[in-house]
């Protein structure tokens, strides 16, 4: 059983949060030639697209954009394999010496991010990899932290964060869900 416990962000709050994240990215990265935003499938793709668009609006310059699917790189294949619907990995540029920002909706155990980094390494050797997330819910199982965080929210183990994006779910919102047996 799942139930909505609270709405952490509505569409307007999500829009403001993404605008702030885009500004933080621009403050740290002056040279957009060497920057790429890579969304982690599935909802990270749409968040990364929006960040790329926001950066483009402010700087009037294109930002390299890609997507990565981590399904084949997960380390819990035989144990719990919570695999998302497979989406395409599309990296249409050489990653060598680029500063790559991985974008995801929720940071939780860190295993998805680890898998995404491994997947990126299949394409070459980036100069650096940073992480941008809309929500950090804690409960890390690996030494991974985000460089850009929309909102940190401490959850209990029976609580989950659901990020909805208009492109997939019809509306923008971040929900705190409670799961019961």
């Amino acid at each position: 059983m799942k139930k909505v416990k609270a709405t952490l962000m509505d569409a307007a709050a999500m829009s403001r949060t993404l605008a702030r994240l885009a500004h933080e990215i621009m403050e740290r990265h002056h040279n957009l030639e060497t920057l790429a935003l890579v969304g982690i499938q599935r909802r990270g793709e749409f968040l990364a697209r929006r960040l790329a668009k926001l950066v483009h609006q402010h700087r009037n310059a294109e930002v390299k954009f890609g997507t990565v699917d981590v399904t084949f790189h997960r380390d819990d294949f035989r144990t719990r394999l919570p695999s998302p619907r497979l989406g395409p990995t599309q990296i249409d540029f050489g990653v060598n010496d680029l500063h790559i920002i991985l974008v995801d909706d929720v940071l939780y155990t860190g295993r998805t991010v680890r898998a995404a980094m491994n997947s990126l390494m299949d394409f070459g050797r980036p100069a650096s990899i940073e992480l941008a997330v809309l929500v950090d819910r804690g409960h890390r199982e690996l030494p991974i932290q985000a460089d850009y965080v929309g909102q940190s929210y401490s959850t209990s183990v029976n609580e989950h964060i659901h990020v909805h994006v208009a492109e997939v779910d019809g509306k923008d919102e971040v929900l705190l869900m409670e799961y019961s047996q």
Partner: protein
Amino acid sequence: MSEPTVTLQHLLGLEGVSKQDIQILLDTGFRFREVLDRPIKKVPTLTGINVVNLFFESSTRTRISFELAEKRLSADVTNFTASSSSLNKGEGLKDTIQNIHAMKMDAVVMRHPAPGSTKQLSQFVDAVVINAGDGTHEHPTQGLLDMMSLQEKFGRLEGLKVGIIGDIAHSRVALSNIFGLNTVGADVMVCGPGHLIPPHISELGVIVNGDVDEVLSWADAVNVLRIQRERMGEGIIPSVREYRSRFGITTERLARHKREIVILHPGPMNRGVEIDSDVADGDQAIILDQVLNGVAIRMSVLYHLLAPHQPLEET
């Protein structure tokens, strides 16, 4: 939204496999095609999984394709070939299987000359069983890779007109193609020497036509089967020259049709018999795409049969 997965426990044939399962396997096959285009063509998905390839019949491309698929998925691979095994010392199939079972394999890929042998194997071992060809019965991964190649070429399978030309009676490739293509809504026409067309094959929902030119006038694509030269010794096929003139996909024959017909061949080819070199190497042939898709679709099959999927939570 969690990823849909197949309902299959084993892949013993395409007969009875649902349209949804076939589509899932094909869709994931295309995901693995992307992996094969990367600079590093290997993912850690099956790390710690043991797969044994049991080949009781000679095979080059299927065995290599499976082995490559397994290694690209980071599985631990054991190869077993009959010529170097205890079979030469009189050990039966069941004994061999039980010994392999005792070795705690997660998956067994088997090719065997006896139809139904993989089904028998699946009853003896507590492992995923994948049929790599069981006699004249089925060769399901070949059927899947042919469908994947057609989908890649045409963007669809439903309503596609596919001709299968050659020795239908002895071809496991033909049977898997028929079952698979019928399930996804393609139309199939078979063509070959009359005595090499099984008498009740139309009951499988295929059209039988003895005239290869009529098939070429009708089809979007033709799958040209290898003429097994060993059958010539049995008197089943009178001569190479006669076969080529009546059923061979020659440059002249294709030129007469003035249509864009896609050519498939499961390999190995008898160039100059069932297919001309110029045709096999020409723009209409997608034979090398089939080879690459073969690795990708076998990765997909291994992935889905060995994956205990569960709903996704954010991680």
